[in-house]
């Protein structure tokens, strides 16, 4: 069945859509009450709150889909603040012509990912607009972090080690090859990283900064962090983890893995003497097995790459559009 304007009119068809697809997959005590707003239990600690919209094209790709992405994106943003994700909302904008089977597949994927991340989807909304079978999802999320937690983009300290939790550019490269209809072994790295981050926090190290390496890639993320913290970041070219497939693709297409986005990789800044311990904890997770110490924080400004030849070059943030509709 194809989505039509009547599915968004708030009448019988809307109810059936909600009942058959959303309620069927997002079962939990809070959502099941179907109230106008989710009433949440009291939260112990400092709440963190975020929102993200997802417009990826194609909707399904090796390693993930828009549903998985919409949960991971918001969960990971909360984890980056040292918060434990608790509840999500999910809003859907459906274009007419969308197959309900496609919608259900994305919704089922959201439910599976939410279960893995240990979050509940407690409220939602659906609208239908005229169009060509498109699907857009917004998720918002609430998490909680300890009062003493000071993780922040502005908290880099000279002497910190820069840790990357895995290879760069996988998601970007996967989306691009799908659009170019190239057959490759590439897989998006889209994943909920909150349990991995929690393991690091539980290990009792003092983590200064966490940031997920999404749109704009490491170059853009590192530039933003250096600016926010008024520090300089030195990365080592020879340490940067890039898979052979991504390396090959970027060589052919003239892309730079430094400006290519991920959906399941993070940058962590921790005091250098604790870096090895953090690395060991990260490597236990399947999402952190390729983690490396790739650089350090110094006094100064900007992001620099120590090239294989031994000179420094400035790392430039992404300029222009990059690849549109990547997440």
């Amino acid at each position, binding site marked *: 069945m194809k989505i039509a304007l009547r599915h968004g009119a708030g009448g019988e068809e809307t109810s059936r859509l909600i009942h058959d697809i959303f309620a069927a997959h997002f079962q939990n005590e809070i959502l099941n009450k179907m109230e106008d707003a989710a009433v949440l239990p009291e939260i112990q600690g400092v709440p963190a709150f975020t929102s993200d919209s997802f417009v990826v094209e194609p909707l399904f790709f090796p390693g993930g889909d828009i549903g998985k992405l919409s949960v991971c994106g918001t969960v990971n943003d909360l984890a980056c603040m040292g918060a434990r994700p608790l509840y999500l909302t999910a809003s859907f904008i459906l274009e007419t012509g969308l197959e309900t089977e496609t919608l259900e597949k994305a919704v089922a994927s959201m439910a599976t990912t939410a279960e893995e991340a240990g979050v509940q989807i407690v409220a939602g909304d659906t609208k239908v607009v005229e169009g060509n079978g498109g699907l857009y999802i917004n998720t918002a999320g609430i998490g909680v972090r300890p009062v003493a937690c000071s993780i922040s983009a502005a908290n880099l300290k000279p002497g910190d080690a820069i840790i990357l939790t895995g290879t760069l550019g996988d998601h970007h490269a996967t989306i691009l090859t799908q659009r170019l209809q190239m057959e490759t072994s590439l897989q998006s790295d889209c994943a909920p990283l909150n349990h991995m981050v929690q393991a690091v926090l539980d290990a009792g190290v003092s983590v200064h900064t966490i940031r997920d390496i999404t749109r704009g890639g490491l170059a853009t993320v590192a530039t933003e962090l250096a600016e926010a913290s008024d520090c300089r970041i030195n990365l080592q070219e020879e340490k940067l983890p890039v898979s052979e497939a991504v390396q090959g693709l970027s060589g052919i297409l003239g892309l730079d893995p430094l400006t290519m986005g991920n959906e399941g990789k993070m940058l962590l800044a921790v005091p250098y003497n604790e870096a090895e311990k953090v690395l060991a904890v990260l490597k236990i997770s399947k999402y952190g097995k390729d983690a490396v110490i790739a650089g350090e924080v110094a006094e100064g400004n900007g992001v620099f790459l120590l090239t294989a030849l031994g*000179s420094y070059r400035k790392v430039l943030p992404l300029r222009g559009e990059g690849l549109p509709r990547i997440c």
Partner: protein
Amino acid sequence: MREKELAAFLQKYKGRPLKLMEVCGTHTSALYRTGLRQLLSDNITLVPGPGCPVCVTPTSYIDKLVEFAFTSGNKVLTFGDMLAVPGSKMSLAEARDQGGAADFFYAPEDVLEKAKEQPDTTFILAAVGFETTAPVWATVIKTAADRQIKNIKFLTALKTMPQALAFLCSQGKIDGFLCPGHVAVITGSEPFQKLAEEFSETMVIGGFSQAQLLRAMVRLVLESSKEQNGLWNEYPSVVKRSGNPVAQKIVDDIFEAGDAVWRGIGRLPDSGMYIKEKYKNFDAGSRGLNEDRIPPGCLCSRIVLGEAQPIQCPHFGKRCTPEHPVGACMVSSEGTCCITYRNR
């Protein structure tokens, strides 16, 4: 280790001071990316040349595209970089903001399909580039002709490198040239060989990877420091003496040589490629776009010749930034000013 030794040679060079030029914009960008430019000895000055197609396009060409964008029934399509190049009144991006029909494409071939889907629109393609892009344009024009597509026209600003190099050689201010490897893949090494002999210059054709760049740069420094003239092909895996005959043939079928104006340099005889009489229906009026109105104070003309550094320009980093370019060298990601600005 071998690469580090080559790098150390360039870093510690103490011979006669050299002024070298990398002609190609892709080299300019690769020399920054690999960090090779940053480690050169103080006795080696490396200046970027006129090898970025966007940077050498005269204002009258942009003005003509803007005019097309505002004429109803037309749609101007171009590579992304071209949208921001300032004309004498405005850029295509500004024209688009004011309701003009202009957009960018990823691959020129895609327009063939678009033209079929929208028969009432005339697509004006901004065909800019050097020898490397010309075969692509020639193929698109040939296909459009074979399929009898009537609603695609091309405003060409295609240029050939040897004439620009000859001009630079005749000025006699450069000790050695790193010649464009991609151009040489198409043309072969022969045209560069002739130039090196005619002007008694040191020329090296180089590739673009770190290893290839190191090899070419070391060769260039070694030979030019000894004032050895001639051409060295340090990209022999893909550059042959006579080039790519298939690409040359399709280009010869569609285009013929004619004078062209290079932004900042002026008119160079036979340095342009124009659509031949047989395919003239596809030409949107590419000849005679000779006017080049550079904003007062803009040093682009001297920068593309390697005579001035971007920081000497009064607009650099002030009025002229990649977001609001005054001169063309600030527009393209391969433009000297843009690269210098972003790496400052």
